């Protein structure tokens, strides 16, 4: 499967980074890794859309616009609330508190799929490597509301 291939690629990239040592890790983290650099795959976002419909849409709405007691997950309010945090922060928030009736019930893979879908819905581009299913592996992916210049 395509997604599997991407995940494999992600793992290989990480393994390579680890093998090359700390200095390289530091450089990799500093290399403009934001949500604008393609941090999820289109396949992943498609899976995420299904998982969103299953576990999130009844409160946050089909169009992710929110209701009185559930905040919007797209648009200015959402982006500003998460601007300058990391993909790992958002992952942790979803994983540990959502859905309200069964927090921590979604697998890490499902949560990263849902997060990929949120990124897609907010206009961040897809890329070649899937969002990993674990927050420490995306702590270096910065959520930036505006596409950095250049």
């Amino acid at each position, binding site marked *: *499967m395509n997604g599997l291939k991407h995940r494999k690629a992600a793992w290989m990239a990480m393994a390579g980074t680890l093998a090359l040592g700390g200095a390289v890790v530091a450089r990799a983290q500093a290399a403009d890794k934001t949500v604008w650099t393609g941090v999820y795959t289109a396949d992943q*976002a*498609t*899976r995420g*859309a*299904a998982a*969103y*419909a*299953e*576990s*999130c*849409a*009844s*409160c946050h*709405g*089909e*169009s*992710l*616009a*929110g*209701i*009185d*007691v559930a*905040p919007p997950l*797209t*648009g*200015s*309010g959402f*982006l*500003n*609330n*998460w*601007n*300058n*945090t990391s993909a790992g*922060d*958002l992952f*942790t*928030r979803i994983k*540990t*508190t959502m*859905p*309200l*009736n*069964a*927090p*921590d019930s979604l697998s890490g893979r499902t949560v990263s799929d849902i997060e990929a*879908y949120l990124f*897609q*819905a907010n*206009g*961040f*581009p897809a890329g070649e490597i899937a969002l990993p299913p674990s927050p420490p592996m995306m702590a270096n992916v910065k959520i930036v*509301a*505006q*596409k950095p*210049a250049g």
Partner: protein
Amino acid sequence: MFDLSRRRLLGGTAATVAMMAIGTRTAAAPLRGADGPDTEWRHYAADQANTRYSPLDQISADNFADLEVAWSFKTDMLGARKEYQFEPTPLLVKGRLYLTAGSRRDCIAIDAATGELLWMHRLDEGRRALNSPRQLSGHGCSFWTDGTSERVLYVTNGYQLVSLDAATGIPDPAFGTNGIVDLKQNFDQELDLETADVGLHATPLVARDTVVVGAAHSAGDVPAVRKNVKGYVRGFDVRTGRRKWIFHTIPKKGEYGYESWLNGDADEAGNGGVWAEMSADEQLGLVYVPVELPTGDEVGVFRRGNALFGESIVALDFETGVRKWHYQLVHHGLWDRDIPCAPILCDIPVKGRMVKALAQPTKQAFLYVLDRETGKPIWPIVERKVEAGDVPGEWYAPTQPFPTKPPAYDVQGVTIDDLIDFTPELRAQAIELVKNYKIGPLYTPPVVSKPGRWGTITNPGIQGGTNWPGGCYDPETHMVYVYSKSQPGVIGIVPNTNEKVSEFPQVHGIAGVAPRPQTAMGSESAAAFRPPLMPGAAPTPGPGGPPAQPRPGGQAAAGPPPGFLAVQGLPLLKPPYGRITAIDLTKGDLTWQVAHGETPDNVRNHPALKGLKIPRTGRAGNLGPLVTKTLVICGEAGFYTNEYGIRGAMLRAYDKATGEEKGAVYMPAPQSGSPMTYRLKGKQYIVVAIGGGNYSAELVAYRLPGGGS
């Protein structure tokens, strides 16, 4: 306080000398009111009138920016997981703060001087709580005393009313069963205790020896069932928990209001709850109850007619539950204009005499001002013709009530003039975008969603305007202060044939996206409705889901899906996105208005706006302001990144006479519950609940540095 008193006793030590040498203004001169008595805050919004007013003036325009964190209280350890939507305002009685907190909504007592936890009460309600339509910490608790006994009352996630001894947090054995009244029982309807769709965020309201409790339900955009729980309101004996009365917000046959429903629709309709805070006037013996819509937030096919008491303020005798008067703000509402907050009780001068009035902030940004003895408008409220829509089976009210005074305090409806105009290009794109929607004035009806006309842009959106925090009121100057947001939404109506999704033939949605069931906060019962989903299977929503939908207005593929209103990621309408308005009730006029909140990051940093000087836009959210002797105080909604690159939000103070900003203090997260204030041992504190995004819930107390004790 104790520490500083001791320091004073040690006067002349090196430490004290060093402190004096630094010579802070506050250390040199005693703080204003430092010798005044301790004050209290015994109700959610200060008093039963819901003024959120305090005459304290130690914290003033001159020193607001000097505020320091006195203490803070993280709620992470309450409940099985962290909470990020922390909405309470604490009560203050005899030096202790009482509030609900944490993801399980525990009730706690905190030392108001130090933030130390004194006691906590928790009720593990299992699935009953997880199925609730209103979860997390809620708005707080209530206090009652007869001068001897002191009780703290709150409603749990699972909809049980608990009465605790204020001294110990131990349930009162004389109240209900071991201190608990099961609110799903004795409700004039048979309910499943574990799954029934009813809960409550709001605090119970204590009026003399009666505690009044409302009801809240799942959002009704895609109502699962026609015959949902009816949101009746009840009064209980505060000593015993005995039900004293029940008021049928959806009248039964033969009761007043039943005839306002066509075809006997009242028999089967549900909802009609009172999820907002309430007010009470103990002199008049009345409780003021803001009622929401019957089932169907945007579709009224099963509640034809004006359908009392939907979207009405109802005045009830709080001893008997007998209706004294009512006033319907919206007839047969189709815009989810549930009355979201308590009416503010205010005695105002009208034509040379003082009138007992009330002022009701709303989602639609009208402040309705009524005589609270009679329900008659203070200034004329006129019925105006409104347009009918095209939804099959819908019933349309021919007119809606429009207050002539005060003017609306936020933008109502949408015209081309209201669209974003930072640059001609953005305006042009906005014009293109709205061509794909129906626009018009307030009460433009929802329409059937179809490609190229996805729905009606409603402004304010279904979350208001003003929402649950409500406003505040200065009884000395007769000014109301209210926060509102300008955040339009889309109401499209789509047909539904899947009874497992909804028993409604028409639901709120966007053409091309199959409606999903909407049940209690994603409760377990929803799973029964859901089609099975195999791992890795194609998505079950409509073809492709929202991101794959055709784009309105020929936007780039990365643009928002239909139903989402943005232009290059910027809000569709002109700023301000959030504002505070001062409304003079002696005249019925707006006195000042200020954009509240620093400009959002994505606007400040937007490439299309480079080089433009944009005045502060404010930010959108749900906020309740506090008014003191001289200031209006309110935290910001949502995060922004400040000039130091630090995320957070500001607690801001405005001169209440002019709206001029006088100071601001950093908070690590946005205001999530409305602030309150008190003086304790000579020091004024401001306490506010914050949290959101990646910052979990925290109660923060601010006070001035040094001196004053």
